[in-house]
Structure formats: C-alpha cells, structure tokens
C-alpha cells in the first residue's frame, strides 16, 4: 500500500513540461495600422488621406490593407500638394468629419505648416470655442538613414511650441497604438510624430494593448525603467538608446531612471519633476537640434519648478548636432545621439 501511494504521489508530482505562451510581438508599423483600423471601424466619420495611403498601401506600408477594407470613400490618395490636402483635411474637420492626414514625412509638413498652425491649431481659440478641429496629422519625423538634410529634420520643438496643438511622440508599439487611438478620439488637432526607423521594430504587446479600447492618455509620460541615481528623459527612438545606456551603466553600479515622454505637448512635468526630486540629476536626450529644443524646455521648466532645489548638478542636454543632417554615414551617425554620447553625458552629470 505504501509502495502504491508512493508511486501515485510520485506520478502526481511529475508535471508535463510546459513553457509560457510566447508573448505577442508586434511591430510599430502594425500597431499603428491596428490602431487606425480599429478607429476607422468604430467611427464612420474617421477617414485617412495622404500620399500613397490607399492603393500603394502606404509609403511605408503603415496603412496596408486599409484601402481594400474601407474603399475609396474613406482611404483617399492625394496629389503631391501638402498645402492643398492638409487644407482639405482641416476643412473637412471643421465641417464635422475626423480626418487623419498623413504626411509622407514631417519635412513635407513644412509646405502645409500654415494650415496646421493657422487653420487647425489656432481656430478653436480664435472662434471663442465655436469651431473645433478634430484632426490628426501623422507621419514619420526626424532622422532616417541616409536621406540627408532636407528629409531628416525633427519637428518636435516646432510643433511643441504652438498653443492649440497637442503633440505626441510614440516610441514602441504599445505607445504607437495607444497614442494614435487617443489622438483620433481627441477633439483637438493632434500631431503624431512617428519614426521611420522604428516602424519595423517588434516589441512585446501586453494583453491590455490588444483590446479595441486600449488608449494611452495624451499628456502622461511613462517611466520605462526605475532608477535611483539619475533621471534620463527622452522621446521617440532615443528612448531605446537610453535604455541601452542604462543597461551598460547598470553593470557599473549606476541605476538610471529612464522616462519615455510619450507626449511633447502638453508635457508631463509632474512625472519628470518627481523623478528629479528622487534622483537629483537630469539628462535629456532628443534627436532634434539643441537650440530651442525639447531638452531646453524641460530644463527651463525644471528651473521654474520645485525640482530645481533638488538638483545636485546642472541638467545636461544630449541632442542632435547643430548642423543640417549630412549624408555620409560616418557623419550622419555622429550627428544623432548615440549610446556612447548618452553614457558620456550621464557620467559627466554624475561626475564619475
């Protein structure tokens, strides 16, 4: 009897070998596609227009499959006239629709910046609250690979400067999907600054992100990595570089707190201040040019707020080089913040 029970308990103790289900990996491109698809399905008034968004499936394939699913009425190919089609999108928004206006890159949005700022951003205020403009401007922003000066500018500072606009800058897939959905549902003009080099990068998609109502609130930053020695604030692709730098420094005993801003305007200063008050050091990292940039604004606001008294060293900005983006690879690589630049800035701030 004892032998039998021993055998049974032995059998019961053995479990079948099992692995955890593979986490769902979704690229940033697919996340944006999903977000737009869900919003197009949810609300009849949402539509997408831009160059190559329909029949070509999107210049960067972000709108793949949408034209096949929704047709000509809701996915509209436009001629190469940003000022024209951005104006049309703003007019449609004024008349009650909810357009998503895609710029092939934000460099081309300069052609249409009058419509974005003067016709979209300022209108709700100028009309005394009578005329909302529920539009989303989206597209890749910032440096790509080898596309040189006229195609590599970062517009976070330019658009972040303007009252009346909301500006978001997603880093990973979760950010991309949550922010594009929030942007489409927002009744204000929202500029979504994506990144071409991030489109193909897969990230783990948590279960809540797979829901059709997954939203990330605009105006809230996320602490990607907890730390105690220094606060590193960034947005878009450089967030990845910051995390890499943090991993390297962790081996040396320096724990960095990495904050992913997610939203440029309205900026989540509470999260940044709370972190600086904890760590006493600040480094900002961005891809754009230094003068009047996102980092400059963060530093100014830190000085104006309670966190200033907690700083043990001046805040340092790591930015793109103050030149039009060069073409040669070696020059281009050295014109955007690299992991080594971030590590250098952190060590300089910490005086190690």
């Amino acid at each position, binding site marked *: 009897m004892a032998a039998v029970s021993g055998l049974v308990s032995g059998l019961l103790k053995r479990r079948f070998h099992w692995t955890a289900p593979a986490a769902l990996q979704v690229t940033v491109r697919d996340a944006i596609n999903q977000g737009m698809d869900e919003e197009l399905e949810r609300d009849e008034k949402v539509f997408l227009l831009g160059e190559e968004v329909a029949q070509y499936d999107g210049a960067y394939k972000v709108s793949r499959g949408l034209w096949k699913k929704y047709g000509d009425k809701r996915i509209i190919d436009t001629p190469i006239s940003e000022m024209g089609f951005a104006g049309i999108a*703003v*007019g*449609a928004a004024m*008349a009650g*629709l909810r357009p998503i206006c895609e710029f092939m890159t934000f460099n081309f949005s300069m052609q249409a910046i009058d*419509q974005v700022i003067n016709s979209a951003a300022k209108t709700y205020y100028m*009309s005394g609250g009578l*005329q909302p403009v529920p539009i989303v401007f989206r597209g890749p922003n910032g440096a790509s690979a080898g596309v040189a000066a006229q195609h590599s500018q970062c517009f976070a500072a330019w658009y972040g400067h303007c009252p009346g606009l909301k500006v978001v800058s997603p880093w990973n897939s979760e950010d991309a999907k949550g922010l594009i959905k929030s942007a489409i549902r927002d009744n204000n003009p929202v500029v979504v600054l994506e990144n071409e080099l991030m489109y193909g990068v897969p990230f783990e998609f948590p279960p809540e992100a797979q829901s059709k109502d997954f939203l990330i609130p605009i105006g809230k930053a996320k602490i990607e990595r907890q730390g105690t020695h220094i606060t590193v604030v960034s947005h878009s692709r450089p967030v990845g570089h910051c995390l890499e730098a943090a991993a390297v420094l962790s081996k040396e005993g320096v724990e960095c707190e990495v904050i992913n801003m997610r939203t440029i305007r309205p900026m989540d200063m509470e999260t940044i201040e709370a972190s600086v008050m904890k760590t006493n050091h600040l480094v900002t990292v961005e891809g754009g040019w230094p003068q009047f940039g996102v980092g400059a604004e963060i530093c100014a606001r830190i000085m104006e707020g309670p966190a200033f008294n907690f700083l043990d060293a001046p805040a340092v900005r790591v930015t793109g080089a103050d030149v039009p983006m060069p073409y040669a690879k070696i020059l281009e690589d050295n014109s955007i913040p690299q992991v080594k630049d971030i590590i250098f800035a952190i060590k300089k701030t910490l005086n190690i």
Partner: protein
Amino acid sequence: MRKMLAAVSRVLSGASQKPASRVLVASRNFANDATFEIKKCDLHRLEEGPPVTTVLTREDGLKYYRMMQTVRRMELKADQLYKQKIIRGFCHLCDGQFLLPLTQEACCVGLEAGINPTDHLITAYRAHGFTFTRGLSVREILAELTGRKGGCAKGKGGSMHMYAKNFYGGNGIVGAQVPLGAGIALACKYNGKDEVCLTLYGD
C-alpha cells in the same frame, strides 16, 4: 423754420382721410416684381447652367435692400470706429470708404439669396458682411470688432476670425481658405447631403 412748417403740415394732413382716388394713383407707380437678364456663365463639368432670367419679388427686394443697408451702415460705423482707434489691428470692410471703393454689400446678400442656410460658406478676410448674412447680429459683430466678450468669438478673434453656423470665417492667410472650402465640400460629399460650399477668394 421750414422743418417746423413741414411737421405742422404733416400733422394736419394726417388728421384727415386721404381720398381713395389719390391712393390708386399712388400705387400705379410701384411694380410687384421685376425681371432681370443674367449673363450666361461658363460651365465646368455641368450639363446645364443656372437660368438666364430671374424674377425678383417686391418682398424679396425689400428684404435684400434692408440687409444691404444694414451691412453698409455697420461697415461705415466700423470704419468710423477704426479711425477713432476703438477698433484695432486689421479692419477690412465691405463699404466704399476704406482704402478703395469696394461696395460689396450686394455680394454678401446676393450670395446668401442663392443658397440655403444649410449650405456652407467660407471667405478670406473681408468677412463682416458675410458674418451678418450668415446669421449673426450686428451687435455680436461690432462687439467682436471692439474686443468685447459679447462678441461672436468672445473678443478673441477680431475682424478676421468670426464664425457662425455653416460659416467658417474670416481667414487671415490669403489663399488658405481655398483648400479649407474644398475640405468642407468633401465633408458634404462624404455625408451624402445635397449641400454646397461656397469658397470665396479675390477681393
């Protein structure tokens, strides 16, 4: 003196009944409607254009005249206020007094006569007349021009940024309103409603 005599005579004649024959003679000088010939327009992607004759009834005529007079007087007053520096910044008017002789009240009134209130209209910066014909009151317009919170945009818009239902301003950047108007028309087409958007440009 002359005025007093005229007033006295009016009072005295008003007291007595007018003979019927005199009334009939008086009414023979007024017509009840008028017919106008309209120049034939060039057509673009249309089979037939608007009619080449139209009839204006007395009622409509008086209504339009009243509207035009209101716009004229409002613009003249705005001009005066602008010269007194009570209206600041830009003040582009429909009347004949500011810069060039531009008596444009008829444009606003005539366009409004041709469309329904459910149609849409967008124009450039010379917008006061259209703001009135699209439904706002003179009070709201003048309050906006003088920067008061009773203005249609609560004083935050000014001369060039007045909005009303189905009226999209008032746009300061020359030419910006053209694609905006196309966008509004796209929305009309998208919604499947039988509405038109008038987009105005060129002074």
